[in-house]
């Protein structure tokens, strides 16, 4: 099997990793870089647990070949906080109790980040649509939507 040494820029840090062509991005992040925020849950693009931002765009890491994102800017949940300072979305999720088991949370927050990047003051319906590709099986969605709205200011 052909192997190659490839460079990945994850959360602003450059990593050189030996990869094979059949490695998915979620395998690269979890197994090679030990970044376990992105999860492979359904593995089929339905649940959004593996969502990361590539050059700012929400991408399903379980359906992305690692070899296709060499040298692109990959943002995972681990790169969102600045040191000890949580990102406003992270703070808001904590304050609103918008998580229970936490499994879906990294994907939820990254999808919400993309939504707010494009639309800083979304309406409730827009938040629902923006998070439609992320499934939560614990809390229901009300607290998550409130958490996003309170950051965006659309709920005020």
């Amino acid at each position, binding site marked *: 099997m052909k192997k190659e040494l490839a460079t990945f820029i994850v959360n602003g840090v450059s990593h050189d990793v030996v990869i094979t*062509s*059949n490695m998915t991005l979620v395998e690269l992040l979890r197994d090679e870089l030990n970044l376990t925020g992105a999860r492979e849950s359904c593995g*089929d693009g339905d649940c*959004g647990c593996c969502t990361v931002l590539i050059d700012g765009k*929400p991408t399903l890491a379980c359906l992305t070949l690692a070899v296709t994102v060499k040298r692109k800017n990959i943002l995972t949940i681990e790169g969102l906080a600045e040191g000890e300072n949580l990102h406003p979305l992270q703070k808001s999720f904590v304050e609103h109790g918008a998580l229970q088991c936490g499994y879906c949370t990294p994907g939820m927050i990254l999808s919400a980040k993309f939504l707010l990047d494009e639309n800083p003051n979304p309406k409730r319906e827009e938040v629902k649509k923006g998070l*439609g*590709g992320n499934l939560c099986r614990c809390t229901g969605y009300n607290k998550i939507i409130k958490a996003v709205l309170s950051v965006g200011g659309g709920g005020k």
Partner: protein
Amino acid sequence: MFRRLRNFDYQEAETVDEAVGILYSCGGKAAVLAGGVGLIGDMKRGSKSPEVVVSIKKISDLDYIAKNESDFLRIGALTSIRTAELSPIIRAGYPALFDAVSQIASVQVKTMSTLVGNLCVATPASDIAPPLAALGAQLIISGPGKTRYVPLEHFYLGVGKTVLEPGELVTEVLVPSVLPGTHSAFLKIARTRADIAKVNVAVTIRVVDGICQEARIVLGSVAPTVVRAKTAESLILSNRLESKVIEKAAQAAAQEVRPITDIRSTEEYRKQMVAVLVRRALEKCCKNSGEVNTV
């Protein structure tokens, strides 16, 4: 599906000619990678196991939505569904296509997936094929030494099967100019808005002086490919779109399809919903055209 992908050889093409060359030399053992949502999912399930995966992501100038000098709409092979959703050209001029792309799937899937990729996966449940077929779209296909144009409605041979030969690559969707008096609509029934359609319907009609001069009714999820309801079309052509006429056409459409029963729906329900959706889509077109739809 925690399945590792089987091994394959990965190649990147930087031009259409290069992609065609690689695909041709692989003689059917290669798959094209654009957005990857369809292909990688199929490879995980094992329903596809190409020996070579040819990425076309690096080909420049395939990501565009534009009008040509003849007012034809051109959509490049690397244009994402989300780009289409956000396009003012599509929103203003192609309401049926806009309705389809705005409700399909999630933001992530729309951002990754290409419109042409959705067409090439050849699922009969595509939400994008019916509105484009109803608009009379053609595909521009580059192959070794030649380029050909195939009407979208003749592109499909069966579930997952198209007329594409080894070495051929769809590079563009071309939609003819929309003549005055044209109205189109897209409707879908699914469990949730973003889910796969149980039945979908796209209709394009052209009405001149109250008479229907052109009609295309395209149905999805009710046959191995998207299909035109030609009997239904013939019933409204050269007619005024009165309620009686619309109802007759809707019933005819339901008789023309041969849906299956599966986890999403039953044959009987799908047939009934074809009639409902065709009626509603025609009514929507009439409403937009300002035609009186007398009871």
